[in-house]
């Protein structure tokens, strides 16, 4: 592990990222906005209800809203942070030198991925104290926060790996960026649309709520999976409707782990030319 983290690309990229004042300004504004949102919500809710206190169900609502905001943050920022990691080196003419060093392709890709998502991880971790405010008012179990953060981490890794993959395969950063955002939109909006479509079709034709296809669209949609983590009862409902007892988060983890492994494998194998291909 120590060897993995002593990765030269990772160390260099993190040094460059945090030497930049933009990173700290970004972090400052993120925490500021999140703080205003949380305190504003608490104040507003307690003053509207007139009771002067913040109820656990309101605390849970705040927690759910924050969870979706953070998911949105991951989905929209990760492509921007990762889709230029390799292609920008190509554009800046630094890639060839990097590829002639003794670093393995895996080391380079791993360093690039981890350094790109490090900033987002920092955002999430630094927001934890604000996020944990909800504990003061009850309604949310600590295990729920842990599972949601694991879910974030997996989603972050996968979107990041896809960004690095496109950045390796495509020559230009702009094309890589569009492809990564395209994939992200597919995984969220398109799967969401197909989920609604398949649920409507199933209820129209079979009279039941959902088909195995609906389960498939639901299990790859981060928004739906987050909902099952927030409301575990929803996961049981889906199991009953589709007849598939496997919780959505399990299928999600398997599917996204496969995407992650595939994206990293492609990036590692395509980063350098195969010198022996002509044989």
């Amino acid at each position: 592990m120590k060897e993995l983290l002593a990765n030269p690309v990772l160390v260099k990229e993190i040094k460059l990222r945090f030497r930049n004042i933009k990173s700290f300004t970004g972090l400052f504004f993120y925490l500021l906005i999140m703080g205003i949102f949380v305190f504003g919500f608490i104040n507003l809710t307690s003053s509207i209800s007139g009771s002067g206190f913040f109820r656990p169900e309101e605390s849970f609502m705040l927690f759910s809203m924050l969870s979706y905001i953070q998911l949105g943050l991951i989905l929209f920022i990760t492509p921007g942070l990762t889709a230029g990691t390799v292609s920008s080196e190509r554009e800046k003419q630094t890639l060839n030198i990097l590829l002639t060093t003794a670093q393995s392709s895996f080391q380079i890709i791993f360093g690039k991925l981890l350094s790109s998502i490090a900033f987002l991880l920092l955002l999430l971790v630094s927001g934890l104290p604000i996020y944990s405010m909800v504990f003061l008012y009850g309604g949310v179990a600590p295990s729920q926060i842990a599972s949601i953060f694991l879910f974030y981490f997996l989603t972050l890794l996968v979107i990041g790996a896809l960004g690095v993959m496109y950045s390796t395969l495509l020559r230009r950063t702009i094309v890589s960026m569009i492809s990564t955002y395209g994939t992200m939109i597919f995984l969220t909006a398109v799967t969401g649309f197909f989920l609604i479509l398949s649920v409507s079709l199933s209820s129209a034709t079979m009279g039941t709520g959902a088909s195995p296809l609906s389960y498939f669209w639901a299990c790859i949609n981060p928004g739906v999976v987050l909902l099952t983590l927030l409301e575990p009862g929803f996961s049981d409902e889906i199991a009953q409707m589709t007849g598939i007892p496997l919780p959505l988060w399990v299928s999600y983890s398997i599917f996204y782990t496969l995407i992650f492994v595939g994206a990293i494998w492609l990036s590692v194998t395509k980063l350098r030319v195969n010198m022996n291909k002509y044989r």
Partner: protein
Amino acid sequence: MIEIKGLTKKYGSFYALKDLNLSIEEGTVFGFVGANGAGKSTTFSILATLLQPTSGEAWINGINISLHPHEVRKQIGYMPDFFGVYDQLKTEEYLDFYGASYGLDAAQRAVLIPKLLELVNLSSKRNDYVDLLSRGMKQRLCLARALIHDPKVLILDEPASGLDPRARVEMREILRELKAMGKTILISSHILPELAEMCDTLGVIDSGELIAHGSVQSIQEKLQSEKVISVKLTGDYIEAIRFFENDPLVSQITEIQDRGILQFLYKGTEHDQLDLLRKAMSAGLPILAFSEEETDLEDVFMEITKGAETL
């Protein structure tokens, strides 16, 4: 030692490199010369494991570049013709990053980096940001970077291109030092005289094909099939022109009247040349001087690459 056998790189029907065969001895400096697009960078990119050859093989210090590219990377220091640097990285950090990339530990890097900066005369710039250095300084820094893991072989693609005369001289001095250190150096340029004085052997490449290989002198002799002869006369050019026109080895006679000189191209050997002079004297031509013009390497290079230029 570098061994290249039948190395070929094809893009569709276009040969960027065609059946290159070359052997470079250990500790020597090999100059690769050719016009832009002749195939120098293609060859170097293949040797640096950045480009896959269509066919052929190459070995660096006995290691096959196709079979063991990772091992080859440890043996070579590569400097591309065009390269960029990272923004917001200091000179020392730049070398530190590449040192770490070659597996050197922090203690080794701490000892090596000041030495390398001294070698390339950048000690005073150790805390400057690399993107703010001049082009010449960046070139020298890139050379220091290529040396960080003490490679046995250096592959330098046009290291002096785009440099002002002073920076060129500095680069040449550094290369001399590296040669003295016993490195095997492959260096390319599209300017032949630039390489001639520092190289043990030269290879001339044109349209992807190696057209000459050997010492500077042997290449000059091989490529220069015709020499330029100047004859200084005291008068009667017409008679002299008529005489030289009759010799089958003479061509392209030109008259430089204000200097009283006739110049022509001559294909014969030194013995033929002596014979021609004897005959001219016997014919009673008023010859004051008969000499072979010095042709510099630039002329030879222009002559051999003119085919490529007209493409």
